[in-house]
């Protein structure tokens, strides 16, 4: 069944879609300096739980992978593994300029520049660092995308796995992970 084909959505699909966008489990995985923005987002001041956004400790339970800042090559490997361990449907939010174009690490020998080459990013949040307000607006954008059926990065990843894998393997020299098979 095509989820993004709006006309064919049944009532069940509506409910599913509603539940999906209002219950976003975020994997508590801080990669760069952006992780420091997550606690204020979650706690009293900004209270992301209002939107059903709660942190989860394991990728098996999580829906959203937040890449909170620059990714070194070493971290990328872990992030890819973590991403692949998450259950479909899953969403990636690129967080801060580093994930968009490398940001202040644009000429670093050791960080990746464009996250989208390595995994499908659904929403980018601009800023260095983005404030919690931006983070929440990013999440709301994600919800809108889900509602519209356009948050389909996980499908793109499946379809273009070879391309992604090639990119990943280009930067990760010691690739010793089990292959993602489905």
């Amino acid at each position: 069944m095509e989820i993004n084909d709006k006309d064919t959505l049944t009532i069940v699909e509506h409910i599913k879609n509603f539940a999906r966008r209002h219950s976003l489990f975020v994997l508590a995985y801080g990669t760069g300096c952006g992780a420091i923005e997550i606690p204020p987002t979650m706690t009293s001041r900004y209270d992301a739980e209002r939107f059903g956004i709660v942190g989860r400790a394991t990728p098996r339970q999580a829906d959203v992978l937040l890449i909170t800042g620059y990714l070194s090559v070493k971290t990328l490997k872990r992030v890819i593994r973590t991403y692949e361990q998450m259950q479909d449907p899953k969403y990636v939010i690129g967080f801060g300029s580093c994930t968009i174009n490398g940001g202040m690490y644009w000429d670093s020998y050791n960080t990746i520049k464009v996250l989208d080459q390595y995994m499908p990013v659904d929403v980018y949040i601009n800023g260095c660092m983005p404030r919690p307000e931006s983070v929440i607006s990013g999440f709301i954008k994600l919800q809108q995308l889900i509602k519209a059926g356009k948050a389909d990065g996980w499908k793109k990843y499946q379809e273009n796995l070879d391309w992604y894998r090639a990119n990943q393997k280009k930067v990760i020299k010691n690739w010793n992970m089990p292959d993602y098979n489905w």
Partner: protein
Amino acid sequence: METLKTISGYFATIGVAFTVGFLFMGFRRILTARVQNRVGPPIYQNLLDIIKLWSKESAINHGLMQHMGPAFSITASVTTLMFIPVLRDGNWFQNFSFEGDLIFLLYIMVFGQLGMALGAGQTGNPNSAIGVSRGLSQIVGYEIPFVLALTALMVYHETTSLHEIMAAQDSIGGWNIFVNPLAFVAGIIAFLGMTHYTPFDVPFAPAELASGPPSEFGGKYLGMMMTSGSIFAFAKLTLFVNLFLGGASNLLELLVKALALYLIPVIIGIVTPRFRTEQAILFFWKWPTIIGILSILWVVWMR
């Protein structure tokens, strides 16, 4: 027709239990948020979580036990519910409560935990195993005061049937919370342990153990576990209402009483930090056990 009615009664019970369960849990989330000066999610948030989990497109498992673990869990919850009289009297919501007794409930209540532990073990995640180790250790802690409290009630009423215990508490003065407050205290402290809310949430410690036993469970498995958790929460609350608050003659009364009971672990949970495992065990073996023993002595003296 009678059969159909009976069977629809089962489903109605499960439905009520599930609804009340997730609403209570949502209520807890809201209350927690309010205490933390937040707004909190909508009260039906848990339902959304559960639906989302069930609607996950994929799931992984590490073997057969990962199917069986949540299945054990739901078995324990539903069976517990089925053998508890939800209401004092009337034909509805009685289900199988005449066919079993308290001793059976005691054991079927841990059935799910053991099943979950097995499922968690299958995943091979060290965090799950550590969580199981802590969780099972904690069971040994809180079951002692719980059994003491139950024994006090059973001895006092000279029955092991929940129905007869309920029937004996026909007026407010006859409620066991007033007749034997010590047993109530011991029982409710044990209940704190059973809910796995803080201060007794070390088996699931999210930041430390990556949520402990269920850390490899996602999608439908986690959905099943959360469903089971909702039902089980209701079943336990009903059990305690029946034991100490004289049961309820209609659903509203039941809701009020159950909520009143539910507030105790919730509020304690909000304001307390976490016990280490051995601290929790030793705590259960100390004060609640002493109170439980006193309650039995009280009963013996009263007879």
